[in-house]
């Protein structure tokens, strides 16, 4: 084997080995990060802590939640959207607009309230409070349920999160129920 051939072969071999070694470590790291990141998402839990119905000229429901990070990693939560159901019937959502006549009320104020923009440490929880504007037709459902005395609240919430190791946001849907 000539010297040129031997040198070229050695160079190509070392290049392959170096890149291969880096690839092994990068592959293990990426797959591990991906799995751990998604496992942490399943550690997020939503709990409804209370409801308050304010039945006046501007009917609304004050919903209180608790979001807990039960995973072993930090999870960034940016904002959330949710839909509220009573006995399986849709009552309102975080998209519901303020329909009152108070000129001082900003109709979009509640959307700002849906921002969290916090990083939840492992085991940390955060209390959330949200005012849902309930339209008249849906308020009739609430009044009917209050008369019957059977109030079973359900919340479907979609959280925009930044999972550990991820560069982009992920949407995580959580459900919670509350019996009065």
């Amino acid at each position: 084997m000539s010297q040129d051939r031997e040198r070229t072969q050695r160079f190509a071999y070392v290049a392959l080995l170096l890149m291969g070694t880096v690839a092994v470590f990068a592959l293990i790291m990426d797959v591990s990060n991906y799995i751990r990141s998604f496992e942490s998402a399943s550690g997020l839990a939503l709990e409804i802590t209370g409801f308050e119905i304010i039945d006046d000229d501007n009917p609304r429901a004050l919903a209180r939640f608790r979001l807990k990070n039960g995973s072993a990693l930090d999870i960034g939560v940016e904002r959330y959207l949710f839909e509220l159901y009573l006995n399986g019937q849709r009552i309102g959502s975080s998209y519901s607009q303020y329909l009152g006549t108070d000129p001082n009320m900003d109709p979009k104020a509640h959307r700002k309230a849906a921002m969290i923009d916090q990083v939840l440490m492992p085991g940390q929880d955060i209390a959330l409070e949200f005012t849902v504007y309930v339209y008249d037709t849906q308020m009739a459902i609430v009044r009917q349920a209050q008369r019957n005395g059977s109030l079973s609240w359900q919340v479907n919430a979609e959280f925009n999160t930044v999972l550990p190791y991820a560069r982009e946001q992920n949407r995580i849907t959580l459900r919670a129920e509350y019996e009065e």
Partner: protein
Amino acid sequence: MHPKAKEWTAILAAAMILAYVSTAAVTQMHDYAFWSISLAGVGVFAAICGALLALVNKRAIASTITASAIATLIFAGLWSYIFWSFLGEYLSFLEIFISNLFFLWVLPQSALILTITTLSGLSGLVFVKAIVPERYQPQQL
């Protein structure tokens, strides 16, 4: 080092490079990859690996195809493992292999990876054989 050992370590190193770039090229992994890459990038890396294997191994064509096949097996195995780690509570590893996830996702992606890495690898090999003077290339059997 024994020539056979050298030949196989080169093939395995190329396979690991291709397995990594293939995994990082998959959409789901983009956000998490140390360095994400497109399918065109996979082709470029496969061509580089084919070119390097052509300079290291005497049976370069067989080496390039073997490296692509091993990389595809690693890719399919890793994604099956990822799905199993998410669904392990509900499905056994065997059930993952006969599920839609495997047949409709892992298998088509693997076929795509195998095609790209093999064709690009062989292109890189042919390129090197064409432009590098014979005195720099390994002696054929």
